[in-house]
């Protein structure tokens, strides 16, 4: 096991850090060697990427907190405009040591930011240490003004202060690189946790009333069921907490002791399988799941979210939707054949056959003009339909319900074109 060693930090803190970040020792030691000692100038910008819940944010946070490095941690989703983001960084910076609220400073451009940043650093007397600015979910930076990302990458140079910007993201650096070029950050990859890592991490926070071995056995079972479907650490943690009480039940009742793994496995297995079908997909919420566990009676009483697929629609809306579906998936030239009473003889030509081979359902819905929709509607409804305002407004309301979608430019005079976005099953359910 590679022990964390660094001359600049006390051994106790390092030890604690090591216990807090299991399975990420190599990354942490790498980061620490990049950071160097407090007063050293570090690399101006570091880019860390890895898959969802591979511990990027957590590692960064614990590392900075345990070593008590001055830092600012900002989530870019939360501060969705550049102004908000910059101001937030400044406010956090001012609050680093002082508790009293400083007055609100407007900061609209990066130029202002650099100026105010220098002032803040001077006031905090942080010149002799490296200041870390961590930007979580950095992919959002790409959607802000074009200058934000390059400027953050060379913040050290711009401010002439000892500062390091750390970007955390789920996507690779290649997707970030702006086309005008910029300062290349140091790229660091966090690999996914393996199953062994997951086992280790999950078993670490066992509840105090049970032994660690007992919990580890439980985690083993849990991973056996869920690992195929889900490798997300957060999700697994969530599931582990939810189902643990069920696992403990025989022990609590005294039917089995903690070592009796086989019996416990028998007890929990069907339960977990069911959990995989419902809770994991968020078909039913976790609190409902807990209720269900407590009652433990009829298991299928609660219907999941997707069980309620039936949609009540007005009479004409149903027909409109069916007509839209037909218009989307049938080629125009078959209309005459299908919807006219006295159609001509069906000529089977080679050309037609060739096209019929690829199923239209695989190609997806095609756009169709409003006139065609109405024409099909008139032919499939038995009695006469009056084209009243209500019928037209139903079309737009179907669009807002996202059952139809408008294609192309939304100029009403230009003959709007629509697409049907619902599936065949849905149409079957409606057509009944």
């Amino acid at each position, binding site marked *: 096991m590679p022990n964390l060693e660094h001359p600049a930090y006390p051994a106790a803190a390092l030890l604690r850090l090591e216990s807090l970040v299991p399975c990420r020792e190599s990354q942490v030691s790498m980061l620490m060697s990049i950071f160097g000692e407090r007063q050293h100038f570090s690399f101006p910008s570091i880019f860390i990427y890895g898959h969802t819940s591979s511990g990027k944010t957590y590692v960064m946070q614990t590392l900075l907190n345990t070593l008590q490095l001055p830092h600012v941690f900002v989530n870019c989703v*939360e501060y969705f405009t550049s102004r908000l983001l910059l101001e937030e960084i400044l406010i956090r910076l001012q609050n680093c040591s002082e508790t009293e609220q400083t007055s609100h400073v407007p900061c609209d451009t990066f130029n202002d930011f650099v100026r105010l940043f220098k002032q803040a650093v001077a006031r905090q007397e942080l010149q002799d240490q490296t200041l870390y600015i961590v930007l979580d979910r950095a992919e959002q930076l790409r959607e802000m003004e074009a200058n934000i990302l390059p400027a953050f990458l060379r913040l050290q140079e711009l401010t002439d202060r000892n500062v390091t910007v750390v970007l955390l993201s789920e996507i690779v650096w290649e997707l970030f690189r702006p086309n005008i070029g910029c300062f290349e950050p140091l790229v660091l990859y966090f690999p996914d946790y393996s199953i062994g890592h997951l086992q280790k991490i999950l078993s670490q926070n066992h509840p105090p009333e049970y032994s660690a071995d007992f919990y580890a056995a439980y985690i083993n079972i849990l991973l056996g069921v869920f690992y195929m479907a889900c490798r997300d650490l957060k999700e697994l943690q969530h599931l582990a907490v939810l189902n643990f009480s069920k696992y403990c039940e025989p022990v609590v009742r005294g039917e089995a002791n903690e070592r009796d793994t086989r019996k416990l496995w028998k007890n929990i297995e069907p339960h977990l399988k069911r959990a995989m079908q419902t809770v994991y997909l968020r078909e039913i919420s976790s609190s409902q799941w807990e209720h269900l566990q407590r009652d433990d009676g009829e298991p299928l009483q609660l219907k999941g*979210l997707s069980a309620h697929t039936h949609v009540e629609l*007005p009479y004409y809306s149903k027909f409109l939707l069916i007509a839209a579906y037909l218009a989307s998936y049938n080629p125009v030239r078959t209309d005459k054949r299908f919807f006219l009473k006295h159609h001509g003889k069906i000529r089977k030509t080679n050309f037609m056959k060739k096209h019929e081979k690829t199923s239209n359902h695989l190609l997806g819905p095609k756009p169709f003009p409003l*006139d065609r929709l109405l024409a099909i509607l008139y032919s499939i409804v038995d009695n006469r339909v009056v084209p009243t305002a209500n019928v037209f407004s139903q079309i737009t309301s179907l669009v807002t319900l996202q059952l139809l979608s408008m294609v192309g430019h939304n100029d009403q005079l230009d003959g709007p074109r629509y697409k049907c976005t619902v599936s065949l099953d849905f149409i079957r359910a409606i057509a009944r």
Partner: protein
Amino acid sequence: QQIQEDLNKQLFDNLVNFLRQSHSEFQKKTTEWTCRMKSREIPTAALVLGVNVTDHDLTFRSISEVLQSNVTPYIALLEGKDCPGIKNLMQKLMGQLMNCYIDVDSVEDEDYVQVSQNRVRCSMTSLINWYKSVTKKTDSETPSRKRASSSRHCQSPLVVVIFKDMESFTTKVLQDFIVISSQHIHELPLVLIFGIATSPMIIHSLLPHSVSSLLCIELFQSLSCKEHLSTLIDKLLLTGQFPFKLGEKVLRVLINIFLYHDLSVQNFIKGFQICVVEHFYSQPLSILCCQLEDIKKRVNALGHDQCENIRRLPSFRRYVENQVSEKQIALLTADDFLKEAVQKLLEDLHVYHENYVSVLRCLHVFTSSLPKYPLGKQIRELHCACLENRVWEIEEYESSLQLARMLNKSDLVTMLQQCVEIFVSSSGTEFDKTVEKLKEFLTQFQQLEAEAFQEQDVSVSSQKELQKKTDLYHLQKTLLELKESRRSKKLTKFEMLRFEVVDYIDSLVRKYLVPADHKTLHEIMYFNTASVLREHMNAAPRIALHTALNNPYCYLKNQALKSDGGGISNKAPDICIAYRLHLECGRLINLVDWLEAFSTVVTAAEGPSADAASSDQVDDVVHARFIRAVSELELLGFIKPSKQKTDHVARLTWGGC
């Protein structure tokens, strides 16, 4: 009129009651959620409301009212159209929350108003700061404040954010908002409510798994709008409370609009209100459409003209014709006598309504359980059928009676009991006898049951006898005998009684369910001009446009335009001529041809005197008029410029009018 206001009030009361019912459960949940805030999940309620979006507004308003009074003062209602971006969403949210704070605490709002008026930094942190300051204040306040109840309710009041129409929010906004708020769920107890119009699947299709895993969604299904409607009809139309009634055709129109077009209870109510207004506006005798107590006063106050009006009513004329001649004269000449008669007739009508409703319900009890529902499943269908004509003359009634004669005993008994309940609860005095009769039936059934037991004993004993006899021939014979006796003896008693019951119900129906058209003075109470309502409720813009352009006389009322035999008159406005000409063309219209046709039509009036010189040269004025007409048509959306061919325009509308 005050009656209408009454009606409105009643309606909204009904609605709010419904909501209370469906959301009482929901409130329980919200309070529970405060306890389980341990995880990062945001508690979320998904309200499936059905597609009748127009009703939702009211629903949400009453939800927020209920929540405000019971759970928390902090409620924000967000609409999809207001929030195209996350920035707008946050602004809207903060604005609503802070404003409601000001509303509640109007003492020291000076500085707060200023802050919210300035551009506050619209971010979660400022929201949290605001929330902290508010909760701190409420904690320090004495509990004598108005909001004491809510702050006692839970230490830190929830912040409820309602997304009115989930479907119309863009995915990105929702995702971002959920991610942000899940980061702060510990500092800010947030509850989300999604209003869903289609199906809960939309949550999955809008939000990716990484986001939906942050939510803790519970599903609440509101009442289906059809049920909603039937209860509404139940409470509004099928009571004796309101003298105003809907005629059969009008009711059909309203229900058709509801079922075919929008499923909106709001629109149904609006239609009903239009009926009320129209009735009181157009029918001068509608003064008499009032509660039973006021009738006498109002009848006495009638003037001579109004009496004449009454005499002109067709139903009254029919009534008069059936009287003896002296009485006829008295009715037609003496106002006082007429007034008395009218008063009596109106009272009869009231009694008729009361009886009608209860017998209708009774019949509904019978028919609604029959297989295939020959008379309709809902009471409204039955109501329509009864209003239309004599219900006992239609085929479905016959078949349903046939079916009723084949009901089994337990069903019949329960139905009879239900009928007894209906009659007992109704206020009509005539039903004492009916109740007695029905009860008699019930006791007879019980007796039958007892007898049946005895007979079973008999049959058991006979079976025992059977076992003794081993001869095959005898066995066959006795078996046959047994069968015969069963068919003739045991079942007949029950069957007889069953026939009797059905016949009795039939007689009740014949007596009380006379359609309202056959009653005298029904015009006063019933509104039956469906065409007016259809015009108001179910507009047909395209048809209107077509008639306007095709037949301008219809709207302009100009005598010169009236002569319309199919040819195109040149006196019509230019746009009409252009429209008529364009109807004759194909998909692409050649502008030059069109212009020529146009100019021939226009210049036809100038007569053959001028045409010789300018046959090939189109007049500048005509040209200008033509261009103007074409551009007007383009504005109306009938044609558009086409790029496929030069000097051609594409036609956009095709028949279907």
